[in-house]
Structures are given as structure tokens and as C-alpha cells.
């Protein structure tokens, strides 16, 4: 919705989504991303069709700017009949509950994970005499590129053994290039441009320290990938970042200003050079991340949420109407009207495309067979 790719109509996509839900025999609808029109509409349709709905939130939103105010209102309307929500960190959970006015007992926290097998350390790729600080992110305002523009000259002056590797592209790339030109740091700062995701691991393996200056971050998978490759992470202390890595052994957290981050980078460089006790052992760090974070664990926890949600009875029309009207005031009245329009439209679509005309896809791997096969293994 923020990129104006599609406008919410709440009726136009209903026939298609209903057909997909019936054809594939869907039992739970799981939506992602607050700014997605399809996600918001699917949650409304799911509750109207009697299916339980789950929503995962990945980002943090503000309360006081205009985009935040409007999006939060939309989210409050569409998530009023939600069965369960999943957030990627406790900061994200607090943010979602306050934004969408949800019942806290329905909001769970399942932290993201990283595919540790793709992000393995390789100490042979690291240079022996220079310390490399790696920055891989989109170069936009949100990722704190203004802070980076202030940090690089100061660190380059105070620590002559440090080089920077900057991967990524964006509208703030020009600021960085201008700064490098101004301070004559062409041989100290290396720009890689946009790095495809498959090559990020090889870029990370070249570094000793990973620097993340984001101004806001719900759960930073980038620092997790860096820690998995054995780098020591220096990051701003925003959003859900403190919940990701144990600090101070794997991450150094700083305030969001240039001087604090420069101090953090200095401390990190002192730890990493010299191979003392303080330095992060890449293999050990990788194994720690491997045990702490895995997508198998995320899947297991999500299945627990699904089990709980599937056992709830579908909501009746009056329950849903009460949910929509709990918005209060004129908004509640309009939401109630919206719900009634959706109900009428559902009846029209059922007349237009009867359920009997939709071919249901047969289940090639029925549930019982899959379960017994796993046990035998």
C-alpha cells in the first residue's frame, strides 16, 4: 500500500481467493506484512469464510507520522477478527499490540532464524595484516547511512589498520561516494555495489567485524548471518536487535550516534586483532548460532500456533460484527457496513461461481500416510 501497487477494494480479489481456498482445501490462512493489500484482504475473507487466520508481522511502525497513523487504522480494522498473530521479536510484539489493538494472549513471539549451513566461516579468506569491517545493507536512510558517513572517516583516521567493505546499493550511495572522495579514502573503502544474496556469505567471510547502523530494526537477520560467519557484530541498540545475539561476547551494542558507534568499532577491532581470548572464534560462534537458531525450530513453533488456532470454532456473523464495531465511533460503524457489504458480496459470488463448479485438488500425500512414513524412518 505504501508503494501504491494496489488499492484495497475488499471485493475485487474475493472471487479468485475464494476459488484458491476451496480448490486447494485450505484450512488456515497465514498472511504476512502489514503493507500488503492481499494480506489484509485475505484475513478478512478467511474469517468471512469460516477459516482461522494467522498473521505474521515483520516490521516496526511509528505512531506519529501520517503513514503510520493511516496504516495502523487499516490494520486495526482488518485484524479485528484475527485468531493469532506471530511477531519476530518482543519489541515487534509490543508494537503490533499497540498498533492494531490486539489481545495480548493471541500474540506470540517466534524469532526468525538463519540457514547456518549457507553462512559458514572461512578463516582462510580473512586477511592477516588488515582488519576488515563489513557493511552489507540497503543504502537508505532507515539503515543509518548518515551515521556510516560520519563513522568511516573517524575510524579510518584513528585506526590505520582498518579497511571497510561496503556492499549494497540505494539512494544514499552518493553520500558515501562523496564522503570517500572528500576524505581521500579510496584505498581504504571498497564498494561492491548490489550483492546478490548467494554471494553475501563470501563477502562476509572476508571480514572480521560487521557493522550495522540501522535506525530502526524489528529483528536483524543480517547480524545473525554475520555472526554465523564468525564476525564480531557492532550494532545500534534499536528495536529488536538486543534480543538477537548475546552481548557482549558476540555483539557490541551502541547508542545511535556517531561517537558511540566509533567507540564500539574501536573496541571490536581491538578484540579481533591479536587472536587473544577476547576474539570471536569463528567455528565456535558458528556452532552456537547453529544450535540457537534454525528454521526447523521456527517451523515447529509455527505448527504449535496452527494447532491451537485450528481447534477454535469459526466465528459467527454477530461475533465478527462485534469485533469490527469495537473500533469505536464512526470507524466502527463504517467497518460494520464494510462487513455487511462483504457478506452480501459473498452470497453473490457463491451464486455466480457455485462451490460445486470448483474442482478440489486431491491430496497426493494424505496426512496419515506421511506421518507413518516418518515414524518408520
Amino acid at each position: 500500500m505504501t508503494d501504491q501497487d494496489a488499492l484495497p477494494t475488499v471485493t475485487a480479489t474475493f472471487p479468485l481467493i475464494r476459488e484458491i481456498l476451496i480448490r486447494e482445501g485450505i484450512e488456515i490462512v497465514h498472511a504476512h506484512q502489514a503493507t500488503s493489500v492481499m494480506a489484509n484482504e485475505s484475513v478478512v475473507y478467511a474469517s468471512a469464510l469460516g477459516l482461522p487466520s494467522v498473521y505474521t508481522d515483520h516490521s516496526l511502525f511509528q505512531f506519529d507520522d501520517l503513514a503510520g497513523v493511516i496504516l495502523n487504522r487499516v490494520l486495526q480494522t482488518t485484524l479485528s477478527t484475527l485468531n493469532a498473530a506471530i511477531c519476530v521479536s518482543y519489541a515487534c510484539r509490543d508494537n503490533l499490540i499497540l498498533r492494531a489493538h490486539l489481545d495480548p494472549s493471541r500474540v506470540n513471539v517466534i524469532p526468525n532464524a538463519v540457514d547456518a549451513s549457507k553462512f559458514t566461516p572461512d578463516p582462510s579468506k580473512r586477511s592477516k595484516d588488515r582488519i576488515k569491517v563489513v557493511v552489507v545493507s540497503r543504502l537508505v536512510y532507515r539503515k543509518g547511512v548518515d551515521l556510516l558517513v560520519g563513522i568511516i572517516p573517524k575510524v579510518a583516521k584513528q585506526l590505520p589498520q582498518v579497511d571497510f567493505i561496503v556492499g549494497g546499493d540505494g539512494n544514499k550511495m552518493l553520500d558515501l561516494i562523496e564522503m570517500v572522495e572528500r576524505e581521500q579514502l579510496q584505498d581504504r573503502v571498497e564498494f561492491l555495489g548490489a550483492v546478490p544474496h548467494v554471494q553475501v556469505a563470501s563477502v562476509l567471510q572476508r571480514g572480521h567485524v560487521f557493522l550495522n547502523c540501522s535506525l530502526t530494526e524489528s529483528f536483524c537477520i543480517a547480524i545473525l548471518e554475520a555472526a554465523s560467519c564468525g564476525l564480531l557484530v557492532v550494532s545500534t541498540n534499536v528495536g529488536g536487535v538486543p534480543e538477537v545475539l548475546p552481548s557482549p561476547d558476540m555483539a557490541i551494542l551502541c547508542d545511535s550516534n556517531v561517537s558511540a558507534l566509533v567507540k564500539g568499532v574501536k573496541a571490536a577491532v581491538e578484540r579481533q586483532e591479536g587472536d587473544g581470548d577476547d576474539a570471536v572464534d569463528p567455528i565456535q560462534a558458528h556452532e552456537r548460532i547453529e544450535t540457537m537458531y534454525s528454521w526447523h525450530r521456527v517451523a515447529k513453533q509455527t505448527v504449535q500456533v496452527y494447532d491451537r488456532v485450528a481447534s477454535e470454532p469459526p466465528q459467527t456473523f454477530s461475533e465478527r460484527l462485534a469485533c469490527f464495531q469495537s473500533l469505536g465511533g464512526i470507524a466502527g460503524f463504517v467497518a460494520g457496513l464494510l462487513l455487511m457489504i462483504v457478506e452480501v458480496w459473498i452470497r453473490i459470488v457463491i451464486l455466480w461461481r457455485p462451490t460445486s463448479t470448483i474442482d478440489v485438488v486431491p491430496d497426493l500425500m494424505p496426512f496419515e500416510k506421511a506421518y507413518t512414513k516418518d515414524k518408520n524412518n
Partner: protein
Amino acid sequence: MTRDKAIKRRLWERGNHQIPLNSKVQDTKKETYDEIFTKFATKSPQMPLSLLTARGLIVGQEFILTCLLLASHRVALDDENKSPEYQPISNILSTFQPTTQPYVLFVPWVSFLLTTAIFSRISPDSASITQKEKLQTRGADSLFMALFLRFLAGVLQTLTASYSSDTVHALAIGGLVLHLLACDFDYANGHTESNGVDTTGRPPFKGGTLSLTAAFFSTILLASRLEENVSVYIFVTYSVILFALYPAARHRVAIATKSKYRAVPFAMTLQLVFMTFLLLSTYEAIFAGAVFVTLCLLVPGWVYTLQSSKTQLRGPWDIAHVS
């Protein structure tokens, strides 16, 4: 076997259920919505009434500037036409003798310009170029602009001459309303943006480009109703001084009078009000005065009584501000 394959096989052999879960899903805190809300709710800082009135004063001043523009347009029309179709010059001004009327208009205008000039010079000069260079560039620019505008006045007058008067009046008023809505009041109150030092003699206009464009749009429309090129020239120059050159001076005055001379912006607003009221008839003056008093006193008072009930939600989701 390479290391990647070894890791993959180990994970697959272990199976899903042996990887320890680090947080059970049911283990969420048992808080209610209200508890979470009060944890993050903070009261916004309470602003004193004097600060609120000072801010309201700027909005009122901008409103008076737009009234001044419209009133001076009417004066220019009357000067040309002297026809009974248009309203006579205001009742207030007509109490003076016709020979002294220009001087009555002249005096508050000059005092206003002098006050602005004196107090904008007091503020510290943050430019990195010398005063002499700045004077030279500004002097040369103003002379060039004066000559250029004199020749352009004829063109500007014909731009919208074919529009009907109703359209012109409606559009001009719409443009001035837009100017009021889009004006950068933070800049007018003396808040500077920290980026950029004035390295050339020609700093960019910072008072809001949409408001400036809307004001000029209205002046061009109104200027098309005048007939003499000289009148058009004077009117356009008048508007340029009021809307393009005055905001920067007001900004400097606001910075200079933050601690000492607190009454100066107030005095400047009074001078502008006096100038405008000279040109309006009694009823119009009463109406404009009522709007002005609402903007300057009633609205700030209302905000002052309401601001204690505002709660802000501050938490880890706030985007950190880079200074």
C-alpha cells in the same frame, strides 16, 4: 565430504525434535492491553502559553500579509480606474486629506522595513563569506532584478489577461489559502536546519517552496486585472518583497530576538496590521481583526488547555534521529 554437506547430514540425521526450542510458544507474558499501553505511554512536553501565542502570532501575521496583498491590489485598481464600479478606498483612509493619503500609507511601510532591517542585522552572521561580498552580490542582484522585472511586467500582465474576473478572483483567493496552509512556520519561528553553511551570496529559499509558488500564482492572476505596466511592476515587486524576501529576514529576526527584544516580532505584526487596516473598510477590518485574534489568541489558548490530555507512545520502535 565438505563441511557444508557434513552439517546438512548431521541436521537431517538428528531430526527435527532434538533441536532444543529456546522459547515455547505458550510462554508469552500474561499482560493485558492496558498494561502494555501504560508501559509505553508518556505525556508530551507541556508548552507554555507564551510560546504557543508566539507561534500563533506568526500564523496571524501570514494571514495579515495575504490580506495586505489583496488590499493593495484593490488600491492599485482604484488608482487606475477611479470608476464607481469598484469600492472606494477604505473609509479609514478617506478620513485623511487626499494629498496626505500617500504619506499615511508610506509611514508604516517604512517603519516596518526599518524594524526588519535593524533586527535582522543583529543576529549572528553564520555565513562564511564577508559582509562586503554579500552586500555586493545582493546589491547587484537587486538592481538586476529590478530592471528585469520592469521589462517583464508587460509580459506578466498578459499571461492571464484572458481569464474572466470571477475565475481570477476565485483562483487568487484559493492560491493565497494554499499559501497559508503550506507556509513553513517552523522556519518563520527561527528553527534552523543544521545542514548547509551559506557559502555563496545566494542561499536557497527556505520558507517553503509550495507556499511561495502559490503566492506568486495569486499575484500573477491579480496583476492581470491591472492595465498600466507601471502598476503591474509595482504590484509584482510589492508581492516579491512580501513573500520572497521577507521570510528570510523574519527568520533572522526570530533568531535575534529569542532571548532579548522579545517584543519585536509582536511590534512587527502590529505594524503590518496597521498597514492593512488603513486599506480596508470598517467591516472588512473588523472581520480580518476577528480572524487575526482567533488565530493569535483563541487557538493557542485552546491548544494549551487540550495538550495535557495528549499521550505519546514511545518505545523501541522509534526511529532514532540522526543529529
